[in-house]
Structures are given as C-alpha cells and as structure tokens.
C-alpha cells in the first residue's frame, strides 16, 4: 500500500529540524522579553533543553541565555535536563495546543517529555522555564506567554 504522509504531520527528521531551528532562536526571543529576563534574575545554571537526540547545552546567567550549543556534546556538565519529543514541542507551540500537550509538566506526565537531574533550579524558576520554552509559540504575546 503506498504511503501517503499527512501534510499536517511533519516527517520525523523534518520535525527535529523544525524544533532545533526554533529552539536556536530562544536567546534572541528572550532578549525581546525583558520581563522574562527580570523573572530569571536570580537564576544562573547550565542545563539541557531540547529533544532527546538533540538537546541544547544552555548556559543561563542572571536570567539571560549566554550560550546555547547543540548537542550531544561529550564531557559537559549540566544540572537538569528537560527533553521532549519533536512532535510534542510542535504541538506545544501551536496557538491552541491539544489538551495534554499544552504545558511542560503535562508532557512529563504523559511521558512525551523527560525531566532529569537536580530539579531545584528548574522548580525554583518553574514559571520562567515554562514561559521561556513557550516563546516560540507563534501566537504568544510578549506578556502572556502561555505555560
């Protein structure tokens, strides 16, 4: 039977590339949201953000992303990792995501995302990370990035 891909669902490689491209924009997006930088002013951490196969090693200093390097990268330390499947990120970034795909922790509950390591910096700055990773959502306005 011939394969007819659903045009609404990207092929896996395409989804990964799309997610990687959007995540790579996070430092610039964050700089255009000074209130979010302010929210993270007490946060300095090295963490992994991204997909299981291509996480970004992310350095945050006083709420600003100062470095973001696509992994995997050998011998690099990180405090915690939040990694979701490319498909989960793409659904999460829709203007009105499906129930269960609309929040970082909803994705961990369903198993579409994993949260590992020392969770203190993540939980202590939870709304910051929820808003940060929601920045690529096309319809999100600067002051009301949804969780």
């Amino acid at each position: 039977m011939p394969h007819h891909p659903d045009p609404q669902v990207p092929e896996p490689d395409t989804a990964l590339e799309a997610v990687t491209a959007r995540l790579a924009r996070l430092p610039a997006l964050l700089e255009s949201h000074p209130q979010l930088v302010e929210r993270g002013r007490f946060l300095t951490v090295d963490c992994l953000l991204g997909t299981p196969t291509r996480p970004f090693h992310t350095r945050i200093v006083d709420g600003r992303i100062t470095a973001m390097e696509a992994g995997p990268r050998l011998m690099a330390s990180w405090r915690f990792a939040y990694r979701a499947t490319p498909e989960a990120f793409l659904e999460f970034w829709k203007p009105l995501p499906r129930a269960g795909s609309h929040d970082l922790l909803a994705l961990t509950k369903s198993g579409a995302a994993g949260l590992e390591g020392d969770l203190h910096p993540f939980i202590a700055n939870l709304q910051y990370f929820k808003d940060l990773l929601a920045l690529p959502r096309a319809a999100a306005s600067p002051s009301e990035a949804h969780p």
Partner: protein
Amino acid sequence: MTPRLEPMVGRYLHCEIDGRPHRIYFEEAGAGIPLVCLHTAGSDARQWRHLLCDEEITRHFRVLAFDLPFHGKSNPPEDWDGSEYRLTTAAYTAAIRAFCGALELERPVVMGCSIGGRIVLNLAIDHAAEFSALIGLEAADFQQPWYDTTWLNRPDVHGGEACAALVSGLMSPDVPPARRRETLWHYKQSGPGVFKGDLYFYRVDGDLRGRTAAIDTTVCPLFLLTGEYDYSCAPQDTLRTAASIPGAKVTVMDRLGHFPMSENPEQFRAYIAPVLEEVRALHDKQ
C-alpha cells in the same frame, strides 16, 4: 458618583469544628436554595466571585463560599500550636458539615472543585441525605500524582511562586489573561505549607477508590464536570469514577481546565447554568 458595589457580603462565622472553636470567613449573595461552594487546594473562596455576582444564579440560589481554616481570611484554630498543617478526609468533612450546621442551611447543594470535588464524593458516600444535590468539579476518586509535593514548602524555594507555577499549566491555554493571573495570584498568597497540607488529603488520605459504588444518586443527585485541559484530574479520571456510580451525570467541559469558575467564568457559566437549572427543577419537585 454612585459607587459600583458587588452584591455579595462577607462575614465571619464563629463555629466549632470537631469541638475546636474556629473563626471562618465566608461570602454570600442571593436568596433561595442554599448553594455552598468549596475552593481548590491552596486557594480560597475568592475563586467563586463571578458566581456570587451572577444575578441569574443568585435569583434562585443563596450562594455561600467559605475559606477553609488556614485559607484566605479564615484563621487556623485558636489552639493551633504551629505544627504541620495536614487536611484529612474527616477534618474536611467536619468543616463543611459544621459550616452548614452553624448557618442552619436546610439540605444545601454543595459544589466543590478539585479537593472540593473529591470531598463532594465523600459527602455523597457518607452523608447524602443531608444534601439536596452534590456537584463535583474536577472530581475523581483518585488521580495519579504528577509531581513531588515536597517542593511546595521548603526554605530554598519560594512557596507562592512554586505553587502558582505548578498549577499554571492546569488551565486552558486560551483563558482570559486577567482571569489566569487572578487565579494564580490566589496561589501566590497561600500560607506556607497550606497547599502541601491540602494535598495530603488529595494524595493520601482521601483515596476513595473502591468506595464510590456506595453512592446512591436517588438519595442525592450527583453531577460531575471536568475541564478538558485539566491534566491533574483529567476527564478520564472523572469518567472512570462516574462509571462506578449509577445515575451520576458527567460533563466534559471544552476550553476549561482545573479552575473553571475562576479561569474562565463565562465559559464555565455555559456548563454550570443548565446543571443548576436542573437542580432547581429537582428541588421544586421535592
């Protein structure tokens, strides 16, 4: 200029709960069938302000919303010694019955959300004859925990910020921004350890699995309404619970989450107004 005043009034009630004197704050509006509203864990009765201002509802219902002890403007009991707050099924049930008894409410309707929805199920199991209808929002016999509650009360994490951030994703993504901020503000104002203490009931002491089949909806009608975006008490949790209760009426609410009455009052109204109309019709027949 004429001041714009809302119709509800707030008062303090002195009553005993399990023999201990308490000072309980509540707000009320309207006249008719008493409708007692129970707030979610870690929040307070301000969540119900839109219902209290809804003239279509208060025309037929005396709506009363009270802050549980330790919440909002209700104090801890006078003899509290500072020990860790933990809500139990027995204490929660006693508080509701004490409030209704002190105000001499005759077979009130009770509507609770989240922990309030869970305790409504317990009222249906053990005290159904005392109520004329029970409404559980975001209610289930049990839900799978989805985070570690120890994060909610420790000195190196800001309790208000953490509590609010944890529940922020339980709302629908398209709620009005002001209502979303207001709902979270209540969580930011909760006393230290109160949300965590409420979740002791939700996670540990209030597990009703295996007990809900005892509910007789011919004694007291039971309505269960759950928002599609609630992943704490997901619609499937409510549907599973209702499957064991003959006669329970279930509604899954579109574009709503765990806090329907405060996160999007207009959308919630579309679902709760017909239920209250049905409750009124049943009440008129009695």
